[in-house]
C-alpha cells in the first residue's frame, strides 16, 4: 500500500515534468521560430509564376495563411535562403499554394 502511494506520487511528479517540458518546449518550438522572409514573392493569378513584391504584401502573413502572396521562410539552418537570383524570371513553381519552400 505504501509502495503504491509512493508510485502514485511519483507518477504525479512525472506528469508535472512532462507538463513543464511541453511548456518550455512550446516556447522554443520551430513554429514560433518561423521567421518572415525579408523578400516576398507573389504568385500570379494563374498560380504559376512568382514575382518579387516590393514590400510585405499581406498583413495576415502567418504560417497558417492560405494567401498565395504570402511567403514565409524557414529558420535559416533548415534550407537555403530564397533570393531573387535563385529564381529565374518566369519560372514555373511546383510548390503548393500559399507556401514557398526555400
Amino acid at each position, binding site marked *: 500500500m505504501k*509502495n503504491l502511494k509512493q*508510485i502514485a*506520487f*511519483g507518477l504525479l*511528479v512525472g506528469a508535472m*515534468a512532462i507538463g513543464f*517540458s511541453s511548456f518550455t*518546449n512550446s516556447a522554443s518550438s520551430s513554429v514560433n521560430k518561423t521567421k518572415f522572409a525579408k523578400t516576398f514573392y507573389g504568385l500570379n493569378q494563374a498560380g504559376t509564376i512568382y514575382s518579387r513584391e516590393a514590400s510585405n504584401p499581406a498583413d495576415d502573413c502567418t504560417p497558417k495563411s492560405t494567401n498565395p502572396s504570402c511567403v514565409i521562410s524557414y529558420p535559416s539552418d533548415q534550407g537555403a535562403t530564397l533570393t531573387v537570383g535563385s529564381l529565374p524570371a518566369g519560372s514555373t513553381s511546383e510548390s503548393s499554394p500559399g507556401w514557398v519552400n526555400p
Partner: protein
Amino acid sequence: MESVIMNKSKFQISELTRERIVIAMRWICMALFIYTAYAKTIDHDRFLKGLTRVHLINGLAVFISFVVPVVEFIIALLLLIPKTAKIGLYCFIAVMTAFTFYIISAIIWEKTLPCHCGGAIEKLSWSQHIWFNLAFISIAIFALRFIKLSTSFKNLRK
C-alpha cells in the same frame, strides 16, 4: 568491567526523514530524465539534426537519437518503482557520467558545440552544463548512501 563506547554523530536524522529524503532525491532525478526525454521525443528531428552536426558521434546519430530518450524513460521508470530504485540510481549515475564525459570531450575536440539536451537545459552554457550534471550525480550518490545507511541500520536491528 567492560564498557562499550559508542560514537554517536551529532548530526542525526530519523529513519523516516532519511527515507523521505531518498524519495525526494529519486523523484528529482526521475523528473529530470522525464523532462529531457519528453523534449527529445517531441522535437526528435531537431535533436537528430543537432547530433549529426557533432563529429564525434556523427555516424551513430540516428541510433543515439532513439536510444537516449528510450534509456532515459526506462531509468525514470526504474526510479519510480521503489523495488528497482537502487538499480535506477546506479543507472542514473552511469548515464549522467557518460553525458558529462561527452560534454567534456565535445568541449575539447569540437569546434562548434550544439546542445540538444531538451527544454530549458539547452540554455545553459557548457561549463554550467557540467556543474549541473555533477550536481545531479552527487544527488544520486547521496541517495544511494542514504539507502545503504538505512539498510545497514535495519540489519543491525535484526
